């Protein structure tokens, strides 16, 4: 029998992404445990990590962290490839798309709070669209739009403020770790 060694070389960048994704997955699990009256309304705590990564390491790293969180979070919650997983994936993709534009806004005027609100609206917008096209093909779904947009605004501001505070308290030189 030959012994084969699979050698996987990892870069510090990979380690950082893994650590940050782990933090995001932890928050996603906490998120899923919080009971809320309306299906589809969630605080989206894991997006705090996405915002911090976006500010510190750029969009590409944020996309990695966000994508890993969606897939690993889906596996851990037992909803991988279920409708809930695709809702979460659509939301993540659309908010990443919007964030790619949001970080180009002048930094003196627009900070993490703006990014967070914009991403939250993109998130719920994408999910509503997917739900309308695929899961609930009925216009009655739009009856819930005011509730969803109010939730997006409220949680968008809260998550943005938390991200802004963490960014202010953690010096830029200190590597962020999942502790």
């Amino acid at each position, binding site marked *: 029998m030959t012994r084969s060694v699979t050698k996987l070389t990892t870069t510090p960048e990979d380690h950082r992404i893994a650590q940050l994704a782990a933090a995001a997955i932890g928050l996603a699990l906490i998120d899923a445990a919080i009971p809320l009256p309306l299906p589809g309304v969630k605080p989206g705590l894991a997006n705090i990590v996405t915002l911090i990564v976006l500010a510190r390491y750029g969009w590409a790293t944020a996309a990695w962290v966000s994508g890993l969180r969606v897939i690993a979070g889906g596996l851990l919650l037992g909803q991988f490839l279920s409708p809930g997983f695709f809702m979460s994936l659509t939301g993540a993709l659309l908010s990443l798309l919007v964030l790619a534009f949001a970080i180009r*806004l*002048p930094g*003196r*005027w*627009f*900070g*993490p*709070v*703006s990014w967070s*609100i*914009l991403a939250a*609206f993109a998130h719920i917008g994408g999910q509503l669209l997917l739900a309308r096209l695929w899961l609930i093909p009925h216009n*009655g779904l*739009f*009856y*819930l*739009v*005011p509730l969803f*947009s*109010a939730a*997006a*605004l409220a949680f*968008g*501001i809260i998550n*943005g*403020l938390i991200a*802004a*505070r963490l960014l*202010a308290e953690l010096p830029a030189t200190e590597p962020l770790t999942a502790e």
Partner: protein
Amino acid sequence: MYWLALFRPGDWLVAALGLTICGVSIPLAWQGGVAEKAVIKRGGEVFAELDLSRNRQIDVPGPLGITTVRVEKRRVRVVSDPGPRQYCVRQGWLARPGEIAICAPNQVSVQVQGGKEAYDSLSY
């Protein structure tokens, strides 16, 4: 306030924009027209159109027996139905345009309609 200091000037703008979206979405989503009439169908054909402003009760004969529909206080409901599972009766009062109660076994449906329809008919 420590938290308020974390807002940058443009953040207020974005928050105001979000609030506007919330405000605009309420009338768009929650006013699907005013409920004006109840359309009762039997076997797919219109049996009666009841004005919701007048209280009345109507009996609709179907294959299983009589389905009774009542209009009261601008609402409509199926009061009794010979169907085995009573879904349409248990649905209770219908008040918003588009709401519908279907008594499938007796082939009777009751739908609330608003004043203006998006279209009169569709043909393919």
